[in-house]
């Protein structure tokens, strides 16, 4: 329910947010359209992938519009999108879109994963549409430079998990005989698996950096670097599972599709850590009393 104050507030960031989401929606549709159109050619035949530039353009457009939405809100409230779930979701839609767009542009081999990655982004997109864009109060402990490092590293961590999950998703989809032909111009599973784990190793590096920056910030903000609160426990477990999965893969012959499930599991865990725990346990991370 809105209070009197916010009823008078004009949420000027919303038009940018909505058009940004429309751009993401069109990018998703064109990715699917492109996938369907390439079906039927001989296995391995060169396929017309002109839709890819459209997907990239729409994705880039969406990122620019979301940047405008974030900037508008930032100017309106006087602080960055770090506090409530509505802000966190737009901010992640922006950064995940941006990092994926760069990967899409520079690594053409990843492009067919858009049909897995973009629908995953839509979990965030749908969620943000269901939330009140309520104004947030900036806690005094957030005026700390380490917040930037912590949030920035976290964005890369989640984006690399997302790309790994895109590849893992393709590996799993290819196990369905009717779907497999859609992905025939991608390298074999073994190569996709190798690429996915390369991203997961990169994700571990950024996850570790995120934990370090977070611990420094926590020391400044709450006078302790670690305290096993909901978010800290969850993010430590996430880091540990990622490390354990990388290990297990080197120590045992893990079937490729099991590895793919592990990657998606780690991404889902990260997702719940980011968007679940801080709001499940409000006290520590919000620091507002």
């Amino acid at each position: 329910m809105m209070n009197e104050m916010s009823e008078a507030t004009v949420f000027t960031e919303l038009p940018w947010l909505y058009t940004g989401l429309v751009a993401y929606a069109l990018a998703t549709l064109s990715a699917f359209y492109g996938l369907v159109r390439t079906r039927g050619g001989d296995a391995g035949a060169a396929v017309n992938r002109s839709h890819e530039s459209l997907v990239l353009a729409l994705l880039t457009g969406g990122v620019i519009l979301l940047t405008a939405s974030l900037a508008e809100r930032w100017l309106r409230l006087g602080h960055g999108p770090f506090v409530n779930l509505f802000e966190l979701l737009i901010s992640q839609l922006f950064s995940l879109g941006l990092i994926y767009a760069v990967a899409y542009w520079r690594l053409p081999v990843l492009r067919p994963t858009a049909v897995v990655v973009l629908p995953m982004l839509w979990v965030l997109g749908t969620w943000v549409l269901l939330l009140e864009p309520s104004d947030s109060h900036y806690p005094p402990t957030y005026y700390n430079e380490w917040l930037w490092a912590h949030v920035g590293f976290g964005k890369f961590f989640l984006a690399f998990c997302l790309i790994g999950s895109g590849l893992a998703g393709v590996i799993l989809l290819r196990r369905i005989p009717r779907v497999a032909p859609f992905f025939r111009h991608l390298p074999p599973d073994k190569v996709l698996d190798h690429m996915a784990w390369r991203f997961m190793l990169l994700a571990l590096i950024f996850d570790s950096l995120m934990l370090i920056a977070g611990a420094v910030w926590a020391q400044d903000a709450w006078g302790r670097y670690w305290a096993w609160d909901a978010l800290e426990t969850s993010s430590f477990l996430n880091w540990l599972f990622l490390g354990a999965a990388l290990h297990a893969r080197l120590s045992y012959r893990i079937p490729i599709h099991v590895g793919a499930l592990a990657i998606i599991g780690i991404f889902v865990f990260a997702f719940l850590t980011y968007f679940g725990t801080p709001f499940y346990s409000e006290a520590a991370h919000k620091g507002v009393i």
Partner: protein
Amino acid sequence: MTALLRRLSSTRFTLLGMALLAVGAALSYDNPVDTPVWALVAPMALLAVNLLAAVMSNARINRRPGLLIFHLSLLGIVILAAIGRLTHMEAHIEMVEGSTFDPAELMNVRKGPWHRGELEKVVFVQGPFTVDYGPGMMRGPTRSHVLVPDGQGGWERRVVGDDTPLVLEGYRFYTTFNKGFAAVLTWIPETGEPVTGTIHMPSYPLFDFRQANRWTPPGGEEVKFWLQLETGLKADQAWTLDPSKAHGILVLRSGEQREELLPGQATALPGGVLRYEGLSSWMGYKLFYDPTLQWLFLTAVIGVLGLAAYFWNKFATHPWPQAGEVSRKGAEPELETAPWGGGKL
């Protein structure tokens, strides 16, 4: 010996240790008092032995400098964190404006058995403070003024608050949400010397409506105090808590007697006279001491740099595969390791 090392270095232990550590972390969630410290220490010890054995016997780890640095830094972090727990100190203190830090006033003190800090060398004087609030009583920045010795016989002013602690002799003092008002009182007994002290009222504005406390003067009867405050608090507007601009009438009850005192006024009570000298404030600090902080940070950063170097070495020479290329040729790309790890070093 080598056979034993080899056995201890098995990566099965690593996965077992990681699984046990996950259980330990889950049990430690929210720091329940009944979770033994072994829930974390035992898996970490297992991992440490496993890792040391691997470093000594497994070329897959000890011939790759980046990976080795990463793993050794994990070991370093565990050791430093353990040293930190053994030497740390945590406590709370409420500092009244104008008072000098006195270790005897620390509350909820928790410290490790090896704590060897020089707390007696810590000197600072609490000055005034302000706290900004946004509409809806949302707490904003805290500015607490303190005086610390400048080393030349004088005092140096510092402003601390929120994420800027006061650091003296390695002890870190953090302002907290816990702060409030105090009444400065002088008790003039019928016989003996007068004593001046403070009565701390509950945290403000959290307990705005409960600014009460009680005290029994030496040789007298229990007195109940209630502070009628005027601070300019506006719950729905931005506002600054500034005790130096606040006014307070002290209401006291002793038996059937009820008095309202303005600063400077006194009243006779059984056993003596009580004078209300004036309104003061107190700031609640959290004290934290851990000599390993910088080392932990350094070790962790070096570890991540090691992992990054390992990543770089592993993949720099292996370009990303191209779409279409592989299946068209029907050939498999060369991978630097087989997915199950049977690759070359």
